[in-house]
């Protein structure tokens, strides 16, 4: 990975779109400090990050119930309950992760990421191991949550619809060598919904993205 220049604005939803193996995950790991790198990342000291991994069953703690999983260290009772309510998880509060479906587990991971009160939330293909309809449902719920919370989000995806639907800005990454092919601003009005997928404006953006890869 070489010559990557990326500016992340506050409270912006960025998606990074590219083929498998193009270094999307590596990029996230480097920005968030989970992997070492040679280069310069200018950031405010003490930035706090949250991460939603693709592998929800390994990232949640199976010895803690849903509530304790999301409230891992911050002991923020009202916020935790509020998040559980928003994501429809209240009734599962006392369940252990392995008792939940994949979609619900990933929702718990998302709730945990928001509750950590981060400056940036990174999501690394969070929906790619879920079935189609679940991944679409979760995409909408994430969108609603973000519109309410307005955090800075960097979302990695190899699903073009998802990448455009969620984003303020799509960064297109190429494979071998990994570099930024371009970026496209998504000026679609919010709140957005699934009908947008067939909208002409959406399709035009999709074509622009496809031309870049």
């Amino acid at each position: 990975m070489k010559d990557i220049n990326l500016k992340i604005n506050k409270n912006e939803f960025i998606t990074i779109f590219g083929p498998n193996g193009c270094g999307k995950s590596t990029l996230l790991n480097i920005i968030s400090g989970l992997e070492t790198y040679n280069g310069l990342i200018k950031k405010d000291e003490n930035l706090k990050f949250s991460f939603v991994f693709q592998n929800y069953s390994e990232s949640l703690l199976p010895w803690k119930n849903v509530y304790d999983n999301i409230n891992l260290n911050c002991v923020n009772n009202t916020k935790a309950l509020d998040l559980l309510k928003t994501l429809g998880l209240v009734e599962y509060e006392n369940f252990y992760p392995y008792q939940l479906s994949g979609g619900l587990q990933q929702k718990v991971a998302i709730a945990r990421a928001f509750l950590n009160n981060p400056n940036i939330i990174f999501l690394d293909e969070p929906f790619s191991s879920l079935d189609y309809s679940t991944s679409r449902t979760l995409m909408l719920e994430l969108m609603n949550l973000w519109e309410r919370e307005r955090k800075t989000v960097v979302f990695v995806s190899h699903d073009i619809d998802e990448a455009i639907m969620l984003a303020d800005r799509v960064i297109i990454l190429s494979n071998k060598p990994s570099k930024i092919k371009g970026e496209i601003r998504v000026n679609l009005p919010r709140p957005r919904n699934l009908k947008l997928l067939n909208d002409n404006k959406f399709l035009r953006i999709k074509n622009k993205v496809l031309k870049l890869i």
Partner: protein
Amino acid sequence: MRKLYRIIFGIIILIFIWEIIVLLSGSIFLPSSFEIGKGFVKLLDNIYFYSDIGATLIRMFLGLIISILIGIPLGLFFGYYGRIYLLFEFIIDFLRSIPPPTLFPLFMLIFGIGNVSKIAPVVFMCTFFILINTMYGVKNVKDIRLKTGKLFRLSKFSLVKNIIIPEALPYIAAGLRISISLSLILSIVFEMFVGTKYGIGQRIINFQLLYDIPEMYAMIIVAGLFGYIVNNVFVYYEKKTIHWSGK
């Protein structure tokens, strides 16, 4: 209930095999299962019997508790600081390869002939098993979970308590299960070697010397049952405590 039927089935098969052996050998040192049954009834009448079981149980558990108190913290430490473990790897691997019964003169020399000389071998062996299993458990902590802990800025203590220990727990439990079996074997063997007043091992030796052959076999069966029960109680609580294991 199913399990009870399977146990009864197992007992019947065991008795059947034993009877065939007795019939084929015709030796006076092989009593029939009926004789052994009578020996067992006599045992229950014997005032020593309960003290024997109690004494062995206490030695076993004291040994196990000390092993846990040494083995788990050391295992956590070595698991976390793998490089330091490498320094001690040879010592640990060598010492745990020595069959402890061969060391009984040394144990007698150091710990005398009292209870300590029967507990020390249990500690000697079980500590290594618990330590090594704990260490593997710590090494096996999922990378993603460690990253999560880091992102959540958990303190070292909180990381160990909330992520590392629970993740290592199934491994620690596996080490404990082996240790329970070992501790019974070693307590009994050292009771036999070193001698004591009460203890399952001592009683078996005594019956042997007195030619109380049915009682001797009855006591051996008691030793087996004892191990079986302790092990099953442990597994029951293990499944309850480590409910997430294998899920």
